[in-house]
């Protein structure tokens, strides 16, 4: 078990380092830098004194060789210091810390909705004896995955805000403002939960233990929930780990459509302004959330199914 945990932790650190390095290289490859961006992104850049730009570039360290910049940034990043955002002058960490609660609210609510609605849909679709209803319900998840999130968002805003005046169209104010964005974000996520869960439920329902349970006289609903669902939820749990990354990525679109503050908006703004320190912060932070979630899930597996660790240790012993 210890070996399993250490291996997973080492992998997590490796992923973080790779995310940091790749984003650094990509940003470095782009022409221009945040100082030039700030100093006049348009044709009026001629009004700016080149000496001043050079001085600022020096201040932020953009005039140093790439290798030196990389080493310096990495050293500081390892200590949790990402420097100041060039576009605002605020520390990157506090910018992210301010945005985080808003995004956690949004993604948390969306994940809850996704699991409840997606899971409910899967259970209902596999439980129903009506063939047409099952077909109908099972065709919803592919639809949910394929419609663009922004379109769903705009449709919801149109209907429930502009027409019915039930919810505000924008802002972070209160639980009322959370409903539409969370629902929007939950559509593709819930659809994927439903797809995976429905498939593994159908597989589980064909298993021998289900036959046994039925033969013992357990009613259909009990067999469905107690026996089949429990075993079918493992693959769904894996998917939830992956979906956390997707939820964070989805917040870029949803937070823009619903004018919510949060990590998604910070990301969009940072990329537009080519704000290297802020983009780096966002990338590493996003990777951190993703890695942590999957680490937790990896560590939960052995608790649900001891065979996971046995298999992993055996592979390690062979190697």
């Amino acid at each position, binding site marked *: 078990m210890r070996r399993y945990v250490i291996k997973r932790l080492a992998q997590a650190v490796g992923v973080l380092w790779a995310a940091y390095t790749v984003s650094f290289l990509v940003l470095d490859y782009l022409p221009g830098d945040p100082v030039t961006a700030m100093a006049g992104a348009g044709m009026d850049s001629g009004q700016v004194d080149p000496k001043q730009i050079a001085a600022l570039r020096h201040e932020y360290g953009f005039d140093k060789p790439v290798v030196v910049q990389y080493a310096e940034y990495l050293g500081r990043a390892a200590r949790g210091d990402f420097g100041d955002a060039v576009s605002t002058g605020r520390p990157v960490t506090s910018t992210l810390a*301010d945005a985080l609660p808003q995004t956690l609210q949004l993604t948390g609510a969306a994940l809850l909705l996704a699991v409840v609605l997606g899971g409910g849909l899967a259970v209902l679709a596999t439980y129903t004896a009506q063939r047409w209803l099952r077909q109908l319900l099972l065709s919803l998840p592919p639809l949910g995955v394929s419609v663009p999130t922004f379109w769903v968002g705009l449709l919801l805003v149109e209907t429930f805000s502009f027409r019915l005046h039930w919810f505000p169209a924008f802002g972070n104010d209160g639980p009322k403002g959370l409903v539409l964005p969370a629902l929007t974000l939950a559509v593709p996520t819930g659809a994927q939960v439903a797809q995976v869960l429905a498939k593994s439920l159908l597989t589980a329902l064909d298993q021998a233990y289900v036959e046994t349970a039925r033969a013992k006289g357990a009613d259909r609903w009990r067999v469905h929930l107690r026996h089949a669902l429990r075993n079918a939820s493992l693959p769904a749990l894996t998917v939830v780990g992956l979906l956390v990354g997707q939820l964070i990525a989805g917040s870029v679109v949803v937070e823009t459509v*619903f004018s919510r503050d949060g990590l998604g908006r910070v990301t969009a703004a940072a990329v537009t302004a080519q704000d290297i320190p802020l983009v780096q912060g966002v990338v590493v932070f996003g990777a951190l959330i993703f890695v942590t979630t999957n680490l937790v899930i990896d560590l939960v597996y052995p608790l649900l199914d001891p065979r996971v660790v046995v298999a992993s240790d055996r592979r390690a012993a062979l190697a």
Partner: protein
Amino acid sequence: MTALPDVRSTPWAALTALVTTSVLLTACGSSGTDPGSGTGQPRSGGTLTFAVGSDAGCVDPQQVASNETIYSVRQIVDSLTDQDPKTGKIVPWLAKSWDVSSDATTFTFRLRSGVTFSDGSKLTAQVVKDNFDAVPRLGALGTLAEGYLSGVKSTTVVDPLTVKVTFKQPNAQFLQATSTHSLGIESSASVKKTPQQKCSDGVTGSGPFVLKQYVQNQSLTLAKRTGYAWGSSLWTKQGEAYLDKLVFKVVPEAGVRAGSLQSGQVDAISSVGRANEAALKGGQVTLQRRANPGIVFGLGLNNSRPALKDARVRQAILYAIDRKQVADTVFPTGTQPATSVLAHTTPDYTSLAPDLTSDAARAKSLLEAAGWKPGSDGIRTKDGKKLGLTIDWVPNAATNQPALELIQQQLKAVGIQVSLRQLQITQLAPTLQSGDYDAAWGNITRADPDILRSSFSTKLANLYRLPTSSLDTALAAQAATTDTAKRKQLIAQAQRLIVHNAYYVPVVELQTQLGVSKRVHALNFDASSRLQLHDTWIG
């Protein structure tokens, strides 16, 4: 950068427009309130909620360059002077009078007495000096203000209410610059803060509104300054502002802004594009428009490129473009085709409409005369080389791409092959500086014709790689004269030289378009087509 409205070109912009238009058209008539109510007497009180498309992440007027943020933070500070949007004339505000030396190097301002900042401190000559001394140290965000004060020798306190600013070279534009938000006067305490602190915490000004709360990317709330009594000489209301509160909400999606205005969730919105006009027509909303002063949208040509060195080729491009078609199909309703290199709202603008007609036949004969003959595919060639042009552009306005695609077709019709190259916003400036480009699409907002010198003088950055010519003389002379008639004449000469030589190909004027609820009155544009909200009231 400063000029463009924040109509971001998002991949789903068209879809947004489609969805909102169809739904809103049906929703229009449902509201029952009387639009005409209260058109009579102005009333004090109330809150104006204004949705803008973006947040610059900074609440210091001296450091903000984006229109969407200038709208709000401008209200916090007063300026030494104001500029009449109708005439372009500079009029008193914090300064009750001023003198400019005949060589335009020394500016002496006599301040109003009794002006206080919202922290209780008094406006004195020393405070103005502190402001102007601090501006050159603002850093990367303060380039507008720094540019206005570039070449400053000293700012001196003559007496407690008289301040003198001296420049090393003639700098006639400085008087207009004192009317801008960028040189708005802040309290001594604010000036002492670092640029970053001023950005994030905001500043103390003497303006008609005071910053109450700023939530980045979310909202900015201003409250009326009680006891305000030193408004610009242009304002109709004396004393305090009418409105109690101004709330600016950041709503990035143009369709959501339009829907929010139509459904009464906000009172006014910025950056209304052509796609959202239909949704807002009729009902409770008026569309307010004004052309931005400064350099019009157009093609900045690299005059050192072999093909473009030939004036006939540049002129052919100028004649091949149908400006009216571009304005009418792509830009918001009311957008005017360019009639000079300057927009018609710029002081000392001269109409050169007869020189900017669309004349494909003339374009073709100019190219023939220059030795460019049509090839089998219709594209002209000379010495085996095709007549091709790459136009660089950045996605900072939704109108850029469709406008350029239309221009691409128009130029193809006379035998010029155009390819479009999209750059990241941050790439444009380095590209122009490097000189490795054929042509670039853009504009600049500035309510003083000196913008011609910044853009076209070969003594400055000379991004368009112009040869030295009599244009330099005219541009230098206009910066050195305080004689308004003489300056106007020199500016007219400069405009003619630029258009006749086709150093720059003017296309259309940038128009600021706002959507405003009919309950809101006197929401006025200032000379730079930004907002003045002191006189605004809700009825």
